[in-house]
């Protein structure tokens, strides 16, 4: 496929995967939605490059990749705060975050350790065009499904872009800059940016939860410990689940639980008493006691925490959890509308 629009992966980073908003409709045959752990940040990145919000981008975990561009490419980096660097004609300059950036053939983007947050999202105008599987391009690592051969990026990969990605990049960037005074030198970005989403601001980070199906099986001491204490995120955490280190939670009534469906954010407690929060790649069913369910609105923030950081689970009601989700959705819509006005095309999309 010579000539097809792509990006070369010179260095893959620690765990960089192609993700979108998830593969829905297959949980009855054991396929979890997967998708971006901090979906709001991916959606914001997509909006910044003029994409519809659910196109596939890169999820960059901790140490990021070095990418070599092969043609005009419009990208945006959101989520974790990186000191990302651009190399343009041998000159190095910082890559601005949370705004659209135009690169050309031969330019390089290097992303190292983030200063804050855990997962960064890179969207490219037109999206990353790997072959969709069961209606989604996202990578489900445990089943080696989707994305680039079902795995994390590796050195030498060529990431396929939309066929018209190069033309789209220039056209969209022209749309963004047509009213600006001519700049000296080659213009690479815009003068505005959007506020990042999901980044936790204090520790321990509050994670709000509604009651779980098996809450009544736990001792009053266990419930008090779960809600009063703080938990440290274990190094054994991954895209399937966040394992928590802290007070062990005992059940008043032990015994087997029949396997039942789980959800994104289910807090399950296995026999060792240490809670596990189920994340994007979780198993669709499970037989552990569910003490709580993390509010959907707080999943993105949890996904931005690293192993070693502390969280505090705070109980909330279902109406509160739904109101949080609604407020978060509205805040994203406001940001998206503001970006679309910059493009001067309220229905910009691909």
């Amino acid at each position: 496929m010579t000539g097809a629009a792509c990006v070369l992966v010179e260095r893959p980073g620690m765990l960089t995967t192609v993700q979108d908003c998830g593969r829905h409709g297959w949980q009855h045959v054991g396929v979890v939605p997967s998708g971006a752990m901090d979906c709001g940040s991916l959606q914001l990145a997509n909006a910044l490059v003029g994409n519809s919000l659910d196109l596939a981008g890169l999820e960059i975990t901790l140490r990021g990749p070095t990418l070599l561009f092969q043609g005009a490419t419009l990208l945006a980096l959101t989520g974790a705060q990186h000191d990302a660097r651009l190399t343009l004609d041998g000159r190095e300059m910082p890559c601005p975050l949370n705004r659209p950036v135009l690169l050309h053939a031969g330019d390089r983007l290097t992303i190292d350790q983030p200063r804050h947050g855990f997962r960064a999202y890179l969207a490219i105008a037109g999206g990353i065009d790997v072959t969709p599987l069961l209606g989604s391009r996202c990578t489900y690592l445990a089943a080696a499904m989707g994305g680039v051969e079902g795995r994390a990026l590796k050195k030498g990969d060529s990431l396929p872009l939309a066929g018209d990605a190069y033309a789209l990049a220039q056209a969209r960037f022209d749309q963004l800059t047509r009213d600006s005074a001519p700049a000296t030198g080659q213009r690479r970005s815009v003068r505005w940016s959007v506020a990042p989403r999901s980044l936790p601001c204090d520790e321990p980070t509050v994670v709000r939860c509604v009651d779980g199906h098996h809450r009544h099986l736990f001792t009053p001491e266990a419930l008090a410990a779960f809600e009063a204490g703080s938990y440290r995120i274990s190094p054994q955490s991954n895209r399937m689940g966040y394992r928590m280190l802290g007070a062990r939670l005992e059940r008043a009534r032990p015994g087997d639980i029949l396997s039942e469906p789980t959800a994104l954010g289910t807090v399950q407690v296995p026999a060792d008493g240490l809670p596990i929060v189920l994340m994007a790649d979780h198993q669709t069913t499970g037989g552990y006691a569910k003490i709580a369910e993390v509010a959907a609105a707080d999943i993105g923030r949890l996904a931005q925490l690293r192993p070693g950081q502390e969280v505090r689970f705070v109980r909330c009601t279902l109406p509160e959890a739904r109101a949080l989700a609604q407020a978060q959705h509205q805040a994203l819509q406001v940001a998206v509308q503001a970006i679309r006005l910059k493009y001067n095309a309220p229905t910009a999309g691909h």
Partner: protein
Amino acid sequence: MQALGDAAVLIEFADHLDLSVNTRIQELAKAIRHRHMPWILDVVPALATLAVHVDPISLGFGDPIEPVRNLLTQCLDEGLTHTRSTRQVRIPICYETEFGLDLEDISQRTGLSVEEVVQRHQHSEFMVLMVGFAPGHPYLGGLAPSLSVPRRSAPRVKMPCGSVAIANAQCVVYPFEIPGGWSVVGRTPLRVFDASRRQPSLFEPGDQVRFERIDRGGFDALARKEGTQ
């Protein structure tokens, strides 16, 4: 019926496994799925429960319990008529010792001969109670009661792909090389899960399943055809 977080509803039909209740759950799950409601993302039947995952945006961030309850009532009122067509799935299996890693062990635990274990497994009429744990990984009910053995104390780190295994009156088929603590009776050469197929999963909840014994030659021929070997 209760919330499973703020974006799903869990309906509990029983607190224990009852095959007739499970059959009902499977019919209901299919009836709901066939309605293709835009606000429903996933319908997940399990052993004695059913989850409906919703899209909160489509529901205006309202309580999903009422719409799910209404939908359930409608489906039940219609008598689940269009879901009677239960799929009959026939799975070739090779019980030779190379594949039936635990046949000897099951024989010792049950006091049956290896051939009797094989016969009773092969003549069990199975039903897919749930697909979970991994993509395409079925939990089959209907195992001959005489074959009920507990889980092995030391799980295997990697179950060979296609292994058919039993424990606690159920039977599973491993779609990938994953860890497992069930006792292996044989192996199917079929590809249990393939996301590129139109029907990615060999097993779907509610299917009726029979195993058909094949010999090593038959296994190899099918495995070549399926590309599993």
